[in-house]
């Protein structure tokens, strides 16, 4: 297993190289010159030229790339053009917000989709199945920005049960963290829940018709045990694949959800940095997102081996 993980990590090297090229070329590709932004509107051409040479923007592109990559490898992502804070420091401050939102959203999607998918998939055609299928289609159709606003309206404004905006770190106050994360997590997790429910329902219908389910029944196991042990573990294989894809979409979705709920996470930072053309910060956010996505995919690959012994490395 360790060799498998190491092998996967090695395979990341070329991927990360390509990512670094793309992220670096953001500097070259986006319109506008960071030096103009930094110098302000009334700057003279001489001042701008000075800032350009200070920032190394006059150097050959390859040298700039080498300098930037070297910094990244040493954990130096540069300094924010806007706040003068080290980029990495800002990122690490905001990462927990986004990660706890994403994980809570995944948790919501699993808590909804596993029972719903199992109930629907073991009784196809029943009333419960039809309700679940209808619910899943609805969940897919609702855009999350609208859902977020509705949840705020109902639970925060009309009833005042939960806060509408803000974030409290888990380590500071778990109860307050939960109250703040609940609505954003539901907002973000609902469409993933709908997709996973459909996937699990289909997989479950397929699995429950397999011969080994009949074997398990012939062994005298109760229906429940047959479904939850023999059915679910096999039906989970396609679901894990979808979950891996969904996790990446969820990271993208945090951009909108953090805006709606005023959460100081990476998504909000990304939006703010784009508006201020804070290039090092944008690069940092992209790199961080890539790392998280790569890590999630690694987890998915590892979990395949648990659910499906056939793909387990020998």
């Amino acid at each position, binding site marked *: 297993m360790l060799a498998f993980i190491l092998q996967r990590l090695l395979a990341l090297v070329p991927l990360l190289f390509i990512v670094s090229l793309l992220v670096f070329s953001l500097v070259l590709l986006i319109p506008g010159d960071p030096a103009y932004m930094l110098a302000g509107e009334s700057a003279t051409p001489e001042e701008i030229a000075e800032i350009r040479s200070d920032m190394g923007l006059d150097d050959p592109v390859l040298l700039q790339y080498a300098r930037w990559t070297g910094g990244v490898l040493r954990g130096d992502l540069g300094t924010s053009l806007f706040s003068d804070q080290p980029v990495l420091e800002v990122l690490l401050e905001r990462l927990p917000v986004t990660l706890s939102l994403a994980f809570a959203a995944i948790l919501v999607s699993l808590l909804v989709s596993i029972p719903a998918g199992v109930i629907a998939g073991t009784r196809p055609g029943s009333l419960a199945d039809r309700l679940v299928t209808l619910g899943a289609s609805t969940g897919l159709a609702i855009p999350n920005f609208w859902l977020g606003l509705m949840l705020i309206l109902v639970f925060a404004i009309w009833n005042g049960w939960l806060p509408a905006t803000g974030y409290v770190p888990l380590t500071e106050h778990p109860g307050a963290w939960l109250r703040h994360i609940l609505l954003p997590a539901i907002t973000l997790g609902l469409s993933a829940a709908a997709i996973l429910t459909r996937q699990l329902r289909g997989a479950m219908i397929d699995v429950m018709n397999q011969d*080994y389910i009949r*074997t398990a*029944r*012939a062994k*005298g*196991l109760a229906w429940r045990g047959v479904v939850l042990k*023999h059915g679910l573990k096999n039906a989970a294989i396609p679901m894990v694949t979808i979950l891996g894809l969904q996790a990446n979409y969820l990271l993208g979705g945090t951009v909108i959800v953090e805006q709606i709920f005023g959460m100081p996470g990476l998504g909000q930072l990304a939006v703010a940095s784009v508006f201020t053309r804070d290039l090092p910060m944008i690069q940092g956010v992209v790199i961080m997102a890539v790392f998280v996505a790569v890590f999630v995919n690694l987890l998915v690959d590892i979990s395949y081996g648990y*659910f*499906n012994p*056939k793909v387990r490395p020998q």
Partner: protein
Amino acid sequence: MSAPLLEVEDLAVEFLTDHGWVRVVDGVSFSVGAGETLGLVGESGSGKTVTSLSVMQLIPRPPGRIAGGSIRFEGRELLGLPEHELEALRGEAIAMVFQESMTSLNPAFTIGDQIGEVVRRHRGVSRREARVRALEVLELVQIPDPEARIDAYPHEFSGGMRQRAAIAMALACDPKLLIADEPTTALDVTVQAQVLDLLRSLQQRLGMGILFVTHNLGVVADLCDRVTVMYAGRIVETANVFDLFEGPQHPYTEGLLQAMPQLGERGKRLAAIPGTPPMPWQMPDGCRFHPRCPYAEAACAQQDVMLTELGEGRSARCRRVHELDLKGAE
């Protein structure tokens, strides 16, 4: 012969199809004694698998249902028994081995886990004790190096080994009755012979009754004491194995025997029964076999034929049973 372990009487099973409720098993009766092997023989679609699944009440519901009859195990009526009492019997007193060893074992769990599971379910023992029992039965079915193989997954086994493991799983709780539904059909001929040898020796050692479902009369001759032949959802003939092969009393049985390939008859065409079995929703009137029967008369198409008792446990469903002199196997 000892007292019957399993008695099936007048069993009727129906399935809901596009043609409404269709009776696929109709008036089937047979019994299996302790230590006895009964072969249940018929073509695909004759209702033999449905019959065997009905004993365990494992036919899928919906679309299937047991529409009538009686299934008694050690004198106790199984039809209408609450689900938890059936579950207590399944895998414990009555165990089953299925045709496709590839698909009938769960790919996500180890062989040892799947065998141990049935032991833990019925014996209430710890994981460790269940593992010890799993090792015992793996040894019993002659899996080489069971210590190493117990933690393997089904896909790491060959077809024959998987079927041995499936048999081990069925035997783990010392069942009194083993229902084997074409357990050797999917295997190579040489492996088939090994598995049959294994079943025979296990039966001699453990003394269980076996209901052996197959379409292969060669296997029946090899393993069974008595044979029940099914055609189109009904029993057409029951006899002990020697009598059946020597002098079949139903034209369908004769057809099956003639269709068996014989050694040393190169170049001779294999006999085949003309036509195909009827679909359950368009059963012919009268004798269900008459459209394919070489001995059929006009009257065969008109009235339903009952089973005729022929003495010594023999019976056949043919109105010309006393006139015909049918050919047995050579």
